[in-house]
């Protein structure tokens, strides 16, 4: 993590180690390649995306109906349902439940919502130990870092770095970097945590309204190991996680793991719809700005996201700037889409070439490039433009709208490119000349050429 929140600055620092950039980019591109293969294996993939998009749009358009149906079914299943309008309410509800049961240690499986709410530090302040049980999450927790990716949270760390960390924290042999041995050590360590935990918490991939059930997907079985041991289980979900019924959950499940990492389905896809015997099950439903986002028709579509991470894997900018450059808990295209409003550096909407690859990768057709462009417009309207745009854009607008001025300026630029040595021009040509050779200056503009050409043609006649 870097001190400054400016994306371009953080990205520049990340780019200084080109070998690491190449490694990071390739690791994530491999996931994209696996996704392509898995998606291609489903003949109806594009139809499935369309269905996924429609299911989410339909549910979001009838959100209060489905949320109430979900609550009713949950209560009928003996589940306690809590409503939180924001992060602090969510954290307080979680703490109250845990305190009531005198919980000292909580095992938690992956949940971007609890990251969004900064639950871990809050509970720790109140004397509750929180153990993240997803391997990647545990690695970054031991390393005192936030996730750099929403599905593979420790993707920024090399196995040697994990080896050093485990040597320090879990006392594995010094220099051990074999992934199997390191995983085995983590497994042993986590087993102890599961057995000594007083409560378990999970995120939620989908909440099935008709059944009053939450769907939790993991590859490691860590959510299930947690939920099935202690008596108390908590599940936190955003209001956007609702789907109407099992059929719609299945449509999304068919795409989730395929689009994330090219796997047909997550190894564990558990539907929880009630507590264990003598146990207690709580679901906390969180808004935290989501209804606000829904007021804007374009931004609202970001709530169709199922957090597969496919857009991060394909994003050429994310892969080359790293997850910590975005000034928000969630990085990459979806991070910009749902985080730009909170971005006080006002740079993350511009951390994008608007190439549109994310939009085509997205399993629920979130129009990410359109949303990102829209954020730029909203920032501009609010007078929050980065990189001096506030000052130079009006000048560019004026210059570009006058063919005479534009011609004048560009012909002097062409002359300058020709007669002044490049060594002198380079410092004045900013980021263009810093990284690239300056364009070879043409003799004249097309306008001028065309006038001479047509005059010559007339004469020839």
């Amino acid at each position, binding site marked *: 993590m870097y001190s400054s929140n400016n994306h*371009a600055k953080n*990205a*520049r620092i990340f*780019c200084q180690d080109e070998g690491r950039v190449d490694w990071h*980019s390739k690791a994530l591109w491999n996931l994209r390649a696996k996704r*392509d293969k898995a*998606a*291609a294996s*489903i003949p109806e*993939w*594009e139809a499935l995306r369309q269905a996924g998009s429609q299911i989410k749009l339909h549910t979001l358009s009838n959100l209060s109906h489905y949320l109430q149906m979900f609550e009713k079914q949950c209560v009928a299943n003996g589940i306690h349902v809590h409503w939180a309008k924001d992060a602090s309410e969510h954290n307080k509800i979680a703490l109250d439940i845990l305190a009531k049961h005198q919980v000292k240690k909580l095992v938690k499986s992956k949940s971007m919502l609890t990251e969004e709410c900064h639950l871990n530090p809050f509970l720790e302040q109140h004397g509750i130990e929180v153990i993240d049980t997803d391997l990647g999450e545990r690695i970054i927790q031991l390393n005192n870092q936030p996730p750099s990716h929403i599905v593979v949270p420790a993707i920024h760390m090399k196995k040697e770095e994990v080896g050093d960390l485990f040597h320090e924290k879990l006392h594995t042999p010094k220099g051990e970097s074999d992934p199997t041995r390191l995983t085995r050590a983590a497994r042993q360590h986590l087993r102890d945590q599961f057995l000594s935990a007083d409560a378990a918490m999970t995120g939620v991939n989908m909440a099935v309204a008709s059944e009053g059930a939450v769907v939790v997907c993991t590859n490691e079985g860590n959510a299930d190991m947690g939920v099935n041991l202690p008596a108390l289980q908590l599940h936190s979900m955003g209001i956007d996680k609702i789907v109407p019924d099992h059929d719609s959950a299945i449509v999304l499940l068919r795409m989730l793991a395929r689009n994330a990492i090219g796997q047909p389905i997550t190894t564990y896809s558990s539907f929880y719809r009630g507590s264990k015997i003598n146990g207690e099950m709580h679901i906390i439903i969180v808004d935290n700005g989501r209804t606000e986002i829904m007021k804007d028709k374009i931004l609202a579509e970001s709530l169709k996201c199922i957090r597969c991470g496919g857009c991060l894997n*394909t994003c*050429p*900018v994310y892969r*080359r700037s790293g997850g910590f450059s975005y000034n928000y808990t969630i990085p990459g295209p979806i991070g910009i889409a749902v985080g730009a409003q909170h971005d006080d550096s006002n740079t993350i*909407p*511009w*951390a994008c*070439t*608007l*190439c*549109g*690859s994310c939009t*085509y990768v997205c399993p629920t057709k979130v129009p990410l490039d359109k949303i990102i462009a829209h*954020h*730029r*417009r909203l920032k*501009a*309207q609010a007078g929050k*433009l*980065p*990189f001096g*745009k506030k000052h130079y*854009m*009006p000048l*560019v*607008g*004026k210059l*570009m*709208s*006058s*063919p005479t001025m*534009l011609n004048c300026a*560009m012909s002097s630029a*062409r002359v300058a490119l020709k007669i002044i040595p490049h060594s002198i021009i380079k410092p004045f040509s*900013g*980021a*263009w000349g*810093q*990284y*690239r*050779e300056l364009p*070879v*200056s*043409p003799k*004249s*503009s*097309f306008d001028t*050429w*065309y006038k001479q050409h047509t005059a010559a043609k007339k004469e020839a006649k």
Partner: protein
Amino acid sequence: MKIALFIPCLVNQMMPEVAVATLSVLEKLGHEVIYPEGQTCCGQPMTNSGCFDEAKSTTLKLLNAFKGVECDAIVCPAASCLVAAKENFHEFDDSAEAQSVINKLYELTEFLHDVCPIASFKKPLDFTISLQLSCHGIRMLNLASPSESMGTKFNKVEAVLQPIEKLNIVYPDPVDECCGFGGTFAVDEGAVSAKMGKDKAQAHAATKALYVVGFDPSCLLHLDGMIRRQLLPIQTRHIAQILDAAL
């Protein structure tokens, strides 16, 4: 057909050879080509930065240059400028007259594939080209199916070039990753833009093709700067220049 040329400011000022080749191709194909005066910028640098107020006056000036011009089609040799012109004309002017201009707008490859296909080429081109499938052309103009999409595969750019005798068409790996230009992104996010450009330039050079050939001059300008900085043995050409050489 009677065709009006839409030559974006970047092509007009920095890459006139692309406009000259476009004019030549269309004339060789027997079209009557005119070049309406008073063309300015499509507003893309401003609207892509979020600055719509600043884009309005230049966009409307460009639109005015085409209003009332008698022609069957308006053809532009730059995909992303064309997309921006379409969107921005629509954004700032919802009149029927503006819509009739928008309806006539075509990117050059699109025009040569969808509207007036080339009957035959005259000269063989005995070399290899690596196609630069720029983002806005494929993902917003449907010039080719993007690699992310699992729907029907198509590639209008290859289809237009493919009949040229002896011409060998190859692709970089990955086939359609963004080159990193991105308009003002190239300077705002210089480090990432340059790394993307470097990777793309190297991927093209690795094909051992003679030219990187594309339909978006701005991407080509960026790639050209990267190629020359890296001293890579490949050069950039616009698709109009290749077509012109074969006609």
